[in-house]
């Protein structure tokens, strides 16, 4: 028995000595000396506390978002001009994309809103709430004005689309369901408890790393692939993957105004149907749910813009 105790004591001593070797250093003080104990007129330096982005700048983003949507509606409904819309798209890509680096965007805000609705402890900023609801509100009256010329992701794809090909109707419709699957998946991952919560939309956003000009190589490659594909297939992300596009499609069904092919002016020539890269013109009428406000149909129309003036002069 006493031998056992001796072994234990020996072990304790050994571990103690090992501990001492591993940590020869001992804390010199037990308490932090303060200005008084240091003396000599010493002043404790301030710990730098950098402030986040100015609040009014965040509000400016929301104001700009609303203004851009207003301009988009005005260009499409009143001016019916594609050039102006291209200018708006380029501006949005520059500001919301490259300058603001793709955050905050309504697509990602789906998740924040979902979490805020399900988790009582989650703090959702007013800016995010506004960013989520504004485009939906506009969609109820004017269709997907956000998609055309405002959304940085959409505008970027719109700008690279130079040789559009028509996607077969059946394939287009089948792929269109993907975005609802993605929406459900995003909501599913967002409502998980905090530890497992994941914002998949933001994680697999193909363009945000392009806007930031840094990021995981595979995401950069994915973004580049979407852009190359987008040179020929109109807005592949918007039409087949964007979960917010799915929401906007639902709400824009209710809208009463938007891209319109005026009945008493039309020629039945079908040029607008050919010009629409998104298959959004059916039976010579723009389908609100699919129309992405690109104004290509106006550009293709022989009765719109410069051609009308030519005919008047002749």
């Amino acid at each position, binding site marked *: 028995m006493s031998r056992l105790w001796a072994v234990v004591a020996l072990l304790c001593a050994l571990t103690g000595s090992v501990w001492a070797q591993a940590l020869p250093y001992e804390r010199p003080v037990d308490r932090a000396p303060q200005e008084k104990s240091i003396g000599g007129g010493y002043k404790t330096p301030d710990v730098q506390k950098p402030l986040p982005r100015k609040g009014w700048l965040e509000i400016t983003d929301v104001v700009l978002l609303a203004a851009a949507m207003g301009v988009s509606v005005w260009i499409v409904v009143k001016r019916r001009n594609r050039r102006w819309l291209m200018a708006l798209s380029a501006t949005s890509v520059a500001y919301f994309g490259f300058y603001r680096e793709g955050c905050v965007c309504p697509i990602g805000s789906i998740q924040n809103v979902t979490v805020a609705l399900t988790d009582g402890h989650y703090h959702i900023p007013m800016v995010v709430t506004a960013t989520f609801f504004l485009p939906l509100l506009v969609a109820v009256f004017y269709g997907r004005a956000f998609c055309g010329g405002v959304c940085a992701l959409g505008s970027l794809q719109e700008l690279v689309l130079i040789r559009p090909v028509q996607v077969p109707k059946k394939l287009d419709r089948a792929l269109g369901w993907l975005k609802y699957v993605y929406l459900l998946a995003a909501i599913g991952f967002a409502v998980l408890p905090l530890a497992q919560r994941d914002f998949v939309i933001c994680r697999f956003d193909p363009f945000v790393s392009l806007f930031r*000009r*840094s990021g995981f190589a595979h995401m950069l490659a994915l973004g*580049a692939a979407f852009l190359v594909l987008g040179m020929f297939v109109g807005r592949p992300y918007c039409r087949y993957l964007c979960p917010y596009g799915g929401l906007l499609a639902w709400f824009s069904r209710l809208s009463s105004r938007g891209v319109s092919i005026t009945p008493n002016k039309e020629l*039945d*020539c079908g*040029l607008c149907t050919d010009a629409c890269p998104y298959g959004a013109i059916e039976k010579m009428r723009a389908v609100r749910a699919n129309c992405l406000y690109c104004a290509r149909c106006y550009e293709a129309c*022989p009765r719109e813009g410069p051609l009308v003036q030519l005919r008047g002069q002749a």
Partner: protein
Amino acid sequence: MKGRAAGVVVLVCVAALTADYAVKIAWTAASDVRVAALQEKVRADAGLAAALAAEQKKIADFNQARRTRINWLSLVLIVAAAAFLVEQPKAPRRIPEKPQKAAGVRRGGKPVVTGAAAPEIDLAFVDEVVAREGRGTEAAIPILQAIQAHYRYLPDEALRRVCELTEITPAQIAGTSSFYSRFRRSPVGEHIVRVCHGTACHVAGARQITDELRRELKIAEGEDTDPSRTFTIEEVACLGCCSLAPVVMVDEHTAGNLTPATACDALGEHA
């Protein structure tokens, strides 16, 4: 040209960025190995600590330099891509294939420029007719009728010949030939296709039938005859078989209950 240059710049930038990434991967792997080895040595010989610090500083500098490089490259890439997109030539605008609704088919009327060259005609018949009908202005209608009966339309050369031989003025010919719808100034096709535009046929879609036939026969806007001069389309009032509406009459053969899809079948073996 500018567009192509911008495209080349885009490709060069993408290649440079990819190469830069590859270099970074290789460099990081190599430097990781070096740092690990140094750390091992430092454990034995504390004097090498400075070398380790230098190595780590080198890594930090490399990353910083790479960041700057990438920023510039991507800036050039964005500008070049914008230039490339702006300089893209536009796809040529297609001319509408269908005729305009507003422009109806008018028979006679002012001379139209036909796409195909009018066939050479023998003017001896004009001399013959003028000799038979006389040179006075009162002979205008009989002469025109005879010419129309012979040539099946009023060729410009024949009319010019009439003006040379008689006292009839070009203005009188133009007035007369455009007043009576019976006269036509452009060559008529081998077969006359009469599309009924009576009330019943109109309601049943005669407009669409006409449009479809015109498109099928490639009849240009403002004309009524196809380029090969096989068919001439006429819009006529009731053909008298409203129960078959919409109706098309090709020469003496009548086809009814047509749809735009079956309209061309009515042209039968002539087409």
